[in-house]
């Protein structure tokens, strides 16, 4: 069997035999993947040229290692009784909080729990929170953006007014009320942040991008070839929105981690442990005004929040230079 050298447009009206479709679909997929890999490589090299981008990637990598390290440490050298981030107690120390020591590299908190263990344990939940929120945002925003750009009219007006409304609302204040009244846990918090982001500003940006894709000739070609609305939106428009979506995923991660930390610091969330809660515990115990004396209670957690937020934010900005060629420098 000879496969035709040029791929028929997907979903075209005159479908060749089934096997052929499978075959050419596969080849189409391979071609697309190859193309995507190629542009990814080109983008990657630009990204790696920006020092800030590399730095942010390194920081994120370090935190990822920290997240993975906790369960391993708990299984190997840390016993749960002493090192559990919530219920543990350092019986080996006389005073709590105790200063960093060989057994407790970052000391213990006022309740005798190991700070390093808390820090590592929280890292994982920050990632879970950030990535869940980002995925929810991107899933909603790309769909909303593509749909409003494609259909226009009332659908567009509705989603864009909604987005305007959400932008006009101060998110943290809203989250303060929501989490205080409903005692949100990590998953619901991620969901709320994701929904607010997805129907908010990100949708507007992705819509304007989708508008510029909508007028491209291949969309027209797909339409002429008999592609349905659903097909065009999900096969042609949304994949082209993904690079920009990735960019806004990075920013959503930043705002999710930040929001969680603020709410935890204010003691409004229903979480076991997090960087925000660590600072909250230290603050309510009055240890913060001791200044540098109890530094290990606030510096590791505070620095982690700042570093991870900055890393995602700066990574997003470096990515922006890849996605947005206008920002690039002409030479180096």
């Amino acid at each position, binding site marked *: 069997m000879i496969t035709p050298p040029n791929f028929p447009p997907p979903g075209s009206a005159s479908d060749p035999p089934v096997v052929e479709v499978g075959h050419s679909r596969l080849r189409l997929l391979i071609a697309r993947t190859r193309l995507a890999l190629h542009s990814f490589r080109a983008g990657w090299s630009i990204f790696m040229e920006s020092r*800030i981008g590399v730095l942010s990637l390194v920081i994120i990598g370090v935190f990822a290692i920290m997240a993975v390290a906790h369960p391993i440490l708990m299984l190997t050298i840390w016993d749960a009784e002493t090192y559990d981030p919530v219920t543990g107690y350092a019986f080996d120390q006389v005073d709590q909080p105790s200063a960093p020591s060989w057994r407790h590299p970052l000391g213990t908190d006022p309740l005798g729990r190991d700070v390093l263990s808390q820090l590592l344990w929280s890292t994982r939940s920050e990632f879970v929170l950030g990535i869940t929120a980002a995925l929810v945002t991107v899933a909603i925003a790309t769909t909303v953006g593509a749909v409003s750009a494609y259909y226009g009219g009332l659908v567009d007006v509705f989603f864009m007014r909604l987005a305007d*409304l959400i*932008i*006009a*609302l*101060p*998110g*943290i*204040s*809203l989250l*303060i*009320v*929501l989490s*205080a*009244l*409903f005692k949100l846990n990590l998953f619901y918090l991620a969901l709320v942040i994701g929904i607010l982001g997805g129907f908010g*500003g990100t949708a507007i940006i992705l819509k304007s991008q989708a508008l510029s894709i909508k007028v491209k000739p291949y969309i027209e070609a797909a339409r002429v070839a008999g592609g349905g609305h659903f097909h065009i939106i999900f096969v042609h428009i949304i994949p082209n929105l993904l690079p920009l979506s990735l960019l806004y995923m990075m920013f959503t991660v*930043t705002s999710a981690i*930040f929001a969680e*930390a*603020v709410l935890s*610091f*204010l003691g*409004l969330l229903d979480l076991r442990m997090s*960087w*925000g809660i660590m*600072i909250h515990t230290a*603050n309510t115990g009055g240890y*913060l*005004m001791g*200044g540098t004396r109890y530094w290990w209670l*606030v510096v590791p*957690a*505070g620095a982690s*929040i*700042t570093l991870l*937020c*900055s890393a995602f*934010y*700066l990574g997003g*900005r470096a990515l922006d230079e890849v996605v947005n060629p*206008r*920002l690039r*420098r002409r030479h180096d």
Partner: protein
Amino acid sequence: MTGYLVRRAGQMVLTLFLIFTFAFFLVQAQPGDYASFYALDPDMPPEVKDQLRASFGLDKPLWEQYLIHLKNTVTGNFGVSFGHFPRPVMDVLIERVPRTAVLFLTATVLSFYIGFFLGKAIAWRRGGVLEYTATISGATLFTVFTPAFALMMIWIFSFRLGWLPVGKFLDPLVWRHAEVTANHVFGQMLLTAFLLTVFAFLALWILRKTGRVGLTRWAGPLIAVAAVVALLLLSLSGIGGLALDILKHMILPIATLTLISFAGTMLLTRNSMLETVREDYVMAARAKGLPEKLVRDRHAARNALLPVVTSLVYSLIFAIDGSVIIEGVFSWPGTGLTLLQAVRTEDLPLVMGAMVFIGLFSLLAHLIVDVLYVYLDPRIRYQ
């Protein structure tokens, strides 16, 4: 322009209505019965409870309650605060909104000015030490964990250096023998600041109208003299010491809020500027033989300002959120702290009131930005 303003105001009213509806149903939807909160409050005499119950229709069906609430809200009646009983919610908010407004406005103006200035500088000279330091420190401050940063500021400036008070609005020791209330003093301060601003704008406007380039140079000194006179008058009026006390309490929260929010404007200005410097009119300005400073400020930066102002909405919302956090940490008795205390104590009428006011705040900020944009971009102004 008038038509535009009317249309925007209409939109605002509608949005405010949506925010109110959202707040109402949110409060209703929280676990726990709204009506029974009144019943549980031990401070409240039974007759007051009955009166409130009647005026807010708490025994009626939900939609009727909603309508009654809406009517009350429109007439400025948010009910009585549980936490501040017997003060009405409106009374609490009227006292606190200006305090937030001052904190927020000053910090926003300052951070916009600093951010725009730095942003245009780093875009003009790319790749220098300034760009790296400003980008990294700006982004760090922008993403810094605000409460921790605020606590650090308190620790440095209040505990270690002892220059500024720890937090709160005023120092009770200073006010022990004061014959006037804090609200009166604060009101006088606001009035002074307002008159001074009006004077500054008028002076600039009149000087520019004369059409002589040399005269505008006198605007700065003139405004400075006016400021000194105003401060003298304020201190001679007998409340100078008290005003100074409030002012001292304002410095640290404003500085903190400014530091965390300038970077947004800075990075936006930089990006926007990188685009405008490639425009033909910037090249034309240089070709005309204008000094580099004028090419940068009058042409590149002036056009780069437009997208920055469009995005100012985001910065303002960021600053509103920031001011809620800052008020929480510094115990600055503004709307944000009110909201925090209200949600902690489940003071539901106050929560609703504060939410509506914060919403109103952001809508007003939004409106101001839009009007500013129309003023700055002639292409929109003359449509």
